[in-house]
């Protein structure tokens, strides 16, 4: 009887340690890195891209190359169980990794629902369903609270927003982009709602024409942004510039990266839209 007990204990312990044996994961994109760390996988991440900077612990991990040119040699050498990345520019590398029989998960969410699905997929692969549930519940709660606040406000009273991704050429995030949905969820109206591409060059004249109430810059700007915008020809009369509602103080990474911090991003955007 004692023997059976002993053996079953060892067996259970073995299962337990097996279930939590160190896995080896590599993330090739800042957004997937954030997701992995948010799921508590910090010990199992063995390699990240050079742009993966959040959480700070990510910077201590082995560097496998930059975002569009990950270094395959390094990846192979680290013997990953799974590689997480985004689709787009990494396509040739991805097909080569697959050819070398390395497991790859591609996540490329263009809206919040896709992002949640990605998180669930990643959780399934890494056996972190519990953590994922908690994470998503937390994000959802934050989003729901904002939704409740803006529900009563009719659409045409919501502030018009222009997202400036870059200044030269003037680039914005339009229909179909992740940030576009964040703006809507935060209670704003993206003036670039009719662009043909998610990220496209936008006419400065059209900005003047559509007269946004707020402008949000997703890049770091040291000078007072409203002053800089004011110097652009014809922009002095734009409502956002006149009322000093040009914001460059949101950490771009919480609104540009489709990751766990978007709920925070929505909160920050909402704060500024509804001062």
């Amino acid at each position, binding site marked *: 009887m004692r023997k059976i007990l002993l053996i079953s204990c060892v067996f259970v312990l073995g299962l337990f340690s097996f279930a939590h044996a160190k896995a080896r994961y590599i993330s090739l994109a800042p957004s997937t890195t954030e997701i992995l760390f948010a799921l508590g996988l910090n010990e199992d991440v063995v390699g990240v891209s050079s742009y993966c900077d959040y959480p700070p612990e990510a910077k201590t991990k082995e560097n496998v190359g930059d975002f569009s040119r990950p270094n395959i040699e390094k990846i192979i050498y680290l*013997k990953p169980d799974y590689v997480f990345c985004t689709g787009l520019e990494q396509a*040739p590398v991805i097909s080569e990794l697959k050819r070398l029989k390395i497991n790859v998960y591609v996540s490329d969410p263009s809206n919040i629902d896709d992002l949640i699905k990605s998180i669930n997929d990643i959780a399934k692969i890494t056996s972190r369903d519990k953590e994922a549930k908690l994470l998503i519940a937390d994000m959802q709660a934050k989003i729901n609270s904002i939704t409740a606040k803006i529900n009563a406000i009719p659409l045409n009273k919501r502030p018009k927003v222009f997202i400036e991704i870059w200044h030269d050429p003037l680039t914005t995030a339009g229909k179909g982009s992740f940030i576009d949905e964040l703006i809507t969820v935060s209670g704003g109206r993206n003036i670039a709602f009719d662009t043909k591409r998610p990220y496209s060059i936008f006419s400065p004249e059209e900005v003047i024409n559509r007269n946004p109430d707020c402008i949000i810059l997703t890049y770091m700007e040291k000078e007072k942004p409203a002053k800089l915008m004011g110097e652009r020809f014809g922009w002095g009369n734009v409502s956002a510039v006149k009322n000093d509602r040009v914001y460059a103080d949101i950490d771009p990474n919480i609104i540009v990266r489709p990751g766990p911090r978007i709920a925070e991003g929505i909160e920050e955007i909402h704060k500024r839209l509804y001062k």
Partner: protein
Amino acid sequence: MKKKVIILIFLLLFAGALGIVIGSVKIPLKELFLEQNRSIVIMRILRVLTAAISGAGLAVAGIALQAILRNPLAEPYLLGTSSGAGLGAVIAITLGVSSLYMPAAAFIGAILSIILVYNLARNNNKVPEHSLILSGVIVSVALSAIIVFLISMSANEALHGMTWWLWGNIQVFNPKLILAVAILVTLGIAVIYIFCQDLNAISIGEEEATHLGINVERVKKIMIIMASLITAGLVCICGIIGFVGLIVPHMMRLVVGPNHKTLIPATCISAAIFMILCDIISRVIFPPLEIPIGVITAVLGAPTFIILLKRRQKIG
């Protein structure tokens, strides 16, 4: 002369070995042949081969064009190959063709643009050098403009990955593709070498060459076709790698002289060595980041050439 060639061959083998042993990942020599590192070693071997054939191909194509155009600034991308290939690739991506067919699309684009350049420059059956150079430049600029237009209009994010085209890429994943291009390049180099005597005579002057019994127009056509095939083949797998096709021929002329019989083989080998070394540097300078090889060839090539030139000026 034979001694110089033997030294070059040794250097080539040494460079090749170095390229396999050194990489962005530090693997100690004894671990190199372990089963687990096999994929890495194969990747490196493919890289070394790609670097060698692209170096040799571009340099010899450069020699051929410099000889028949009698212009020291002639280089392989002169005839519009690079923008033609880029346009072929961009059109393919825009039409949603699978990335499997990218190299084929780029190759077709390159060939079509060369045909366009050639026919624009043609005057009856003759091709005057200045017309060829001019039409090459014009077609390049026009096609580049179309590429930019298509990229700005398109909704396809994959086009952003096209930057690797501009500065070259030596990591080609498909060994069958490398083999196909290697065969093409070797054939091209062989044909150009067969005409080494003709190229010598044409270097002296077109009329002088005719008086030596050489059918200059025919040789020009064949050289243009060969140089174009080599360049088109290399562009569609490696993108644009500048400097090699322009400067390595000049460097080797300073070392072995302008006689194409020795110039062509010597340039083949030295360009291969040069590319392999540049590739090694691009991988080990800031690992795991890979500096695009076009940057290394320029940064390394320019001072080397200047040193050689200054030394020659002191002697001669």
